[in-house]
């Protein structure tokens, strides 16, 4: 109870609510993603107590993911990638004159999905944490490798491109002083590189400045303000619809949460999978994409529920569930916190505070989200060229502010260019980001494990949990060639 009351102190509450309003702004402006919003807000959180910073991050992410559905419904442009699936029926509903109903459903389903997602997080995470205490270096090595591999496989694009991105991130993570021997690796005599590559500047570069680069590449769209008609929200029929589709909401929230818990999957994949499942089990599957309520409910409940799921591996194993939690883990380390099973024993108070903040954020979302929908009648008139230039200067100041160091701005710029090139080459960025976080953990556990086993790789393969992880790893990358003979035999038998 003390934890619950503590989150309502003004020094937590005020930045938290401001961050949620900022999240609505970020989410509803196409081109600005939830990850980018979190990356931009991180430098501000370093000057606060950890829970205030984490409340801001949670607030931004929940609001931004919801707000992405606003332009998706009205303009056919997803505000964030997680709103891609919401376009299909949301925009069609808008064309039928049911735009306000679609947005009201969006908001309430985001609230319910987020609530279910956080409740699963609260009940599942502590149980998993007890199990995770049995893990040794061998299991942690595989856990990190598996998390990264999953990100590489699930990300958009080919598996090999995902693997290239992941390996590149792991290579970047080796820059700096080697923890085991104290030897400086790949620093080229630079003292700035001794501490390794700053995670936050890299993050701001990959998600902030590269996104700006991508947007300014099409000059014709720069001046275009997304003006639209006045929004009138109708909540009258929403209650009835929510009751009618209660099982769909629960189903989509659970699917969203489970997918969110897979490292690298995130809210966008959760929304698409949930939409696909809803379509498959629906009696009117043929009407999906023509503007039906189920097509709005499924992705919007799933994308917010996924956010709760992404925190499960992040808190329990120290493995980020998506890019937002990847940034969160970096920030938590800078706050002096070490995510992992021990945090549930050593810092239970803070963990409970995080749970309560996530829960209360859903209720705040209802109010702030509603106000956000109303306010965006005016915000969409704000020209994109002004917003993008502002984001550019925020990226510079944000990365400088971390350590008052211009070297971090250089890192940000280089990673911005790298991110832009990767996107042009259709190489997913998510594995690179996860690798920057997971790299030290994977290397450390591999090398300590090898010292323990006197140079033998056998314990990495024969311990029961390790064997399971190893089989999963093989299946992840080689499922197609492995399953081919079986499929061929099955087809032959059918014939």
């Amino acid at each position, binding site marked *: 109870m003390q934890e619950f009351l503590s989150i309502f102190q003004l020094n937590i509450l005020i930045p938290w609510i401001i961050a949620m309003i900022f999240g609505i702004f970020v989410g509803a402006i196409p081109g600005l993603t939830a990850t980018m919003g979190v990356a931009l807000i991180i430098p*501000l959180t370093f*000057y606060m107590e950890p829970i205030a910073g984490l409340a801001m991050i949670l607030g931004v992410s929940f609001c931004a993911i919801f707000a992405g559905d606003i332009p998706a419904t009205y303009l056919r442009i997803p505000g964030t990638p997680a709103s891609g699936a919401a376009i299909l029926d949301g925009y069609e509903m808008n064309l039928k004159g049911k735009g306000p109903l679609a947005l009201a459903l969006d908001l309430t389903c985001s609230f319910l999905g987020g609530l279910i997602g956080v409740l699963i997080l609260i009940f599942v995470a502590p149980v998993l944490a007890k199990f995770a205490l049995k893990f040794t270096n061998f299991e942690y090595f595989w856990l990190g490798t598996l998390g990264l591999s999953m990100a590489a496989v699930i990300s958009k694009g080919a598996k*090999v*491109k995902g*693997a*290239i991105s992941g*390996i*590149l991130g*792991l*290579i970047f993570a*080796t820059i700096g002083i*080697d923890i*085991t*021997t104290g*030897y400086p*690796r*790949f620093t080229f005599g630079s003292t700035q590189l001794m501490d390794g590559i700053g995670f936050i500047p890299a993050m701001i570069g990959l998600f902030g*400045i590269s996104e*700006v*680069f991508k947007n*300014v*590449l*099409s*000059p014709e769209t*720069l*001046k275009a303000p997304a003006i639209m008609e006045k929004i009138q929200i109708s909540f009258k029929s929403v209650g009835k619809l929510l009751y009618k589709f209660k099982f769909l909401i629960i189903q989509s929230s659970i699917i969203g949460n489970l997918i969110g818990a897979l490292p690298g999957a995130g809210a966008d994949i959760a929304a698409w999978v949930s939409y696909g499942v809803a379509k498959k089990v629906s009696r009117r599957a043929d009407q999906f994409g023509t503007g039906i309520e189920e097509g709005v409910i499924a992705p919007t409940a799933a994308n917010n529920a996924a956010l709760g799921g992404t925190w499960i591996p992040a808190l329990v194993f120290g493995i980020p569930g998506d890019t937002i939690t990847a940034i969160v883990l970096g920030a938590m380390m800078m706050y002096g916190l070490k995510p992992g099973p021990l945090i549930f024993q050593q810092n239970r108070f803070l963990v409970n505070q995080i749970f309560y903040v996530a829960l209360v954020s859903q209720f705040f979302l209802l109010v702030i989200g509603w106000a956000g929908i109303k306010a965006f009648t005016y915000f969409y008139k704000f*020209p994109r*060229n*002004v917003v*993008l*230039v*502002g984001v*550019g*200067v*925020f990226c*510079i*100041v944000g990365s*400088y*502010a971390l350590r*008052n160091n*211009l070297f971090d*701005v*250089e890192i940000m*710029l280089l990673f911005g*260019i790298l991110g*832009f090139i990767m996107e042009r080459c259709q190489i997913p960025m998510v594995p690179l980001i996860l690798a920057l976080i997971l790299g030290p953990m994977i*290397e450390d556990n*591999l*090398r300590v494990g*090898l*010292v323990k*086993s*006197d*140079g*033998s790789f056998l314990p990495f393969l024969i311990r029961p949990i390790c064997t399971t992880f190893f089989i999963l790893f093989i299946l992840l990358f080689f499922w197609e060639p492995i399953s081919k003979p079986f499929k061929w035999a099955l087809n032959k038998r059918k014939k």
Partner: protein
Amino acid sequence: MILFLTRAFPKASTGASDLTGPSFYPNLLAILFILCGIYEIVYGFKEVEGRNSIGLASILKGIRNPGFVNIFLMFLLTVFFIVFMNLLGFIICSYVFLFILMWRFGVPLIRNIFYSIIYVLFLLFVFGKIFAIYLPSGVLDFLGL
């Protein structure tokens, strides 16, 4: 390059031979990276077969695209920020960055001046005053901001 650079790394003094030394893990990653690269090159060639090859003219056309000029300008202005931040100060650098880019992106002059000033004041207030981050004053040191 990684394989070449790690040759200068010291051997492990404890534990299981070279496997625990500082070069083992980067070398492992480099080998995996090379294997993935070879796969991509082979598949890349297979995919490109039958398509028109990318000539110098198409590359030059792409570079002359106004969008690429925008990106190049942003890059140059960020470098300007890095180089001159301590000398000219945060206010001038951020104003130049904002003004030139908004001008390039077609924001009308009066609005451009107005938005640039608002942004600079906002950043000064949030980062400089609220979070007490040191933002160099440079040549405007006499203003005492």
